[in-house]
Structure formats: C-alpha cells, structure tokens
C-alpha cells in the first residue's frame, strides 16, 4: 500500500514538474514552435534519403519502401516517447561539467525525476510524422493482405512503448557512465546516435558481427527490426516479442543499477 502511494506520489510530482517545464519553455513561444517544425523537417529529410534510394532500386535485402517506412516510424515514435519522458537525462554531461547537478541534489525530488522533467518537450513534430508514416505503412500492408490490421496495430503500439523503454534503458546506462567519466558525448555518439542511425535501416544489410552486436550487447534492433520480423513478415515466432520485452527489462535494470551506483559515487566538480 505504501509502495502504491509512493508510486502515485511520484507520478503526480512528475506531471507537476512537466507542467512547470512546459510553462517555462512557452515563454519562448517562437523557439518552441520553430523547434517543433524543425524536428519534423529533420526526421522527414532523414527518411526521404532512404525513400529516394528505395524508389530508385525497389528494395534493400527484401525490405520494400512500405516495410522500411514501418521500421523508421516505430523507431521515430519510440525515440520521441523516450526523449519526451526522459528529457535532460540525455544532457547529464552538461550538469556534471557545470556542477549544476549539485543544485538538483538539494531538491526534495529524486535526481533522476528532476532530470527527466527538465526542459520537457512533447516532440510534436516527430510524433506526427511517425504516426502518419505508420498509418501509411500499415494501411498499405493491410491492403495487400500482408497483415491483419487489428492484430498488427496493437502489437505495433506495444512495440513502440517497449522500444521507448529500451532506448531509455540504454540512454540511462550511458548517461550514468558520466558519473565516472564526466565526458560522455563520445559514448552517447556510439550507443545512442550511431545505434539509432543503424536501426533506421533493415538489419539484414549489415555484416554478421554488427547484426549480433545490435541484437545483444546494444540491443536496439529489438526496438523495430525484430518486432517487425514477426508483426509484418511472420518470419520469426511470437517469442521475438517476449525477447524484445526481456531486452528492454534488461536495459532498464542495467541503467537503473548503474545510475544508483553512479549517483552514490558522484563527486562534484567544485573547487
């Protein structure tokens, strides 16, 4: 009962802090809207690169344009959800270098929660883009009889939520390394930026070792590729979905463990 109450308390606090953060960002209304539009432009330009290639050459290793759009949409939605919910966890380095984390330690809120709610943004642009791409892709695939919409849609939404948790777990584990390394930009470049870029494209184009890496140690392929192999292609069994859930649970556990260990060994930058 006490746990339930404390969880409810945390959620209420989360919502309150998000409201504060949202109100403060709305003080710069122009920047807010410009940022929203810009992020949608960026995501659509990124996809159009792949679309241009696919429109010219048909398919990459058995993945058509509609199927690739699905992979891309699931990734964009999962990432948007992750970055909305975890916001400044990705920017921990800034707090560590400037010493601003000390201020957060003094607040009567868990540090992680404080970081998660700072500079909150809804990522409207990416969400709209991802949702419309997903709608296009699912509609086209259902029309061709490749999928049953009423089965694929709920599974896809579950994959998006699971993917967001997985990306959060990896992001949290990477950020937590900052407690020991301080500078984590390079590490984030590998585990987040490069990894996200890699799974924008079907995993089947990569050599064996990279496929293995993205499915085990850095399991980003479970965000979109492996769920899609079941939901769209039926090429693997339903156990891949269970495996995806296990991957995100493992990533979250690793992230949480590293975070609590790291926070305990935090030494301020102070002079």
């Amino acid at each position, binding site marked *: 009962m006490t746990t339930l109450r404390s969880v409810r308390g945390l959620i209420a606090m989360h919502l309150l802090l998000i409201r504060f953060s949202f109100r403060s960002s709305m003080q710069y209304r122009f920047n807010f809207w410009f940022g929203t539009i810009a992020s949608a*432009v*960026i995501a659509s330009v990124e996809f159009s690169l792949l679309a241009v290639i696919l429109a010219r050459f048909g398919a990459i290793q058995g993945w058509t344009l509609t199927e690739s759009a699905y992979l891309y949409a699931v990734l964009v939605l999962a990432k948007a959800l992750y970055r909305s919910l975890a916001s400044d966890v990705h920017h921990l380095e800034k707090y560590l270098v400037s010493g601003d984390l000390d201020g957060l330690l003094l607040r009567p809120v868990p540090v992680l929660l404080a970081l998660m709610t700072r500079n909150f943004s809804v990522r409207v642009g990416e969400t709209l883009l991802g949702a419309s791409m997903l709608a296009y892709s699912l509609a086209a695939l259902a029309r061709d009889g490749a999928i049953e919409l009423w089965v694929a849609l709920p599974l896809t939404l579950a994959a998006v939520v699971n993917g967001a948790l997985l990306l959060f777990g990896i992001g949290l584990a990477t950020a937590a390394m900052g407690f020991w390394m301080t500078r984590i930009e390079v590490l984030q470049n590998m585990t987040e930026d490069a990894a996200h870029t890699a799974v924008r494209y079907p995993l089947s184009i990569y050599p064996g070792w990279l496929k293995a890496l993205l499915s085990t140690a850095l399991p980003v392929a479970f965000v979109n590729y492996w769920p899609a192999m079941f939901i769209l292609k039926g090429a693997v069994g339903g156990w891949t979905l269970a495996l995806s859930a296990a991957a995100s649970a493992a990533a979250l556990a690793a992230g949480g463990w590293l975070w609590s260990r790291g926070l305990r060994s935090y030494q301020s930058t102070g002079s």
Partner: protein
Amino acid sequence: MVFFALARASFSRNLQYRASHLLHNGASAMFGFIYLSIWIGIGEGRDLGEYGLSGLVSYVALNQCLLWVTSFTTFGLGMPQLVRTGAIAIELARPVHLFYSMMSREWGTIAYQLLYKSLPIYLLYVFLVPLRLPAGLAETAAFFAALLCAAYLALCIQYLIGAVSLWTTEAMWLHWVNNALLMLFSGFLVPIEWLPGWLAWLSRWSFYPSLQYIPTRIYLGMDGIAAVLPSLAWCAALTALCFAATGAMRRRTEVQGG
C-alpha cells in the same frame, strides 16, 4: 597578421582535446560504415551507372571524411553564445571586421579537423573499405581547390546561422535543419543526379552540392576543374550576404549599461 594569429590560436585550442577527438573518429567512421552497408546491400547484382559498386563505395566513404570540413564546423561560429552573454557587442566594436575575425578563427578549427579528423578516417577507409586513391596530381590539386571552396562555404553558412541568433535568441534548430538539408541536397549519401525531379532541381540550384558532391566527383576523376565554377559563384554570393548580415547586426545590437 591577424588572420594567422587567430587561426593558429584556435588550432592550438583544438589540439588540447586531440585524444578525445581521436576517439570520436571511431564513432564517425562507424556512421560511414552504416552508409556503406546500405550501398553494399543494394549494389549486389544491380547497375549503379557510371559509379559502379566500388566507385559508389569510394564516393560515400570520401563524403563521410569530408563532413568534418564541410558540415561539422563550429555551430554559428560561436556567435549564439556571444549573443547570449552580450559579448557580441565587444566583438562588433573591435577594429577588425566581425566576419574577418570569426572567419580567421574558424579556419584554424577547419585545418585542425582536416588533420585530426578527416585524415585519420580517410586513411582508415583507404585501407579497410577500400577508398580509391585520387586519379593523379592534377585531380588532387583540383580536389583541394574544390575542398577549399567547400570549407569557405560551410564557414559562411555558419556565420549566417550565428547572425540569425541576434534576432531569435536560439539558432540551434537552424543548425540542425541545415545539417539535415545537407544530408539530402549535397549528394552526401545519394548522388544528386539520382534524386527525383524536383529534389534534384532544388539541389542543383542550392550551394549544397559544392560542399560534398563537387569535391568528391573531382576526386574520383568524374569531373574536371571546371566543376568548381559554381562553388566559386556561391562563395562570392555568400560573402556578400555575410557582409550584409554584419551591417544588419550592427544596427540591431544595443549596448546597455555603462
């Protein structure tokens, strides 16, 4: 000379972080590897026109190396930060033109990135990918001329982005949009003649091909030195724009307090 003093200073400042930067090159090479995998995945058994698979692999690999000179220049040449702290007023008051001093500093950074970022990745790709060596001495000279234009254009673009921050307080988004457009229109991943109709048209009439497509084609021996002409025209046009922006910035800046 002011130019060399400023350029050397920013070169040395970057040099302080070279160990961390070399590590960063690993991540950058990884990105290139992802892009290469796409083309290797597609290229099997397909006709890739005048490039051929090995040519296209060299094309993409070289483009990845060039990013450090043509795209990963300093955000707004550091001007958004100066705007935020108010130091831009001091910069504008210096006896050296703002564009000239900002440009001189950035050349130091560009030279550093060419040596410590582009070159190591280039060597890695030459041995691993493999990325072709340039066809001959004349091609190499023409390539460097095109690269010089590309670096200068990249610098002008960042100056203009930096100038915008005087009006919008925040210009990071503009920087990211510019990077995204560069990926599409510069021929970075897909040669511009393969873009569909209107995208190819937009690309041809923009400065983006001068950043990646033109230097790379010259390097691969597919175009001659004459291909640099549009780059030169863009250099002149953007220089004029940068000077006009500086004028507007002077009028915009308000110095408060005593």
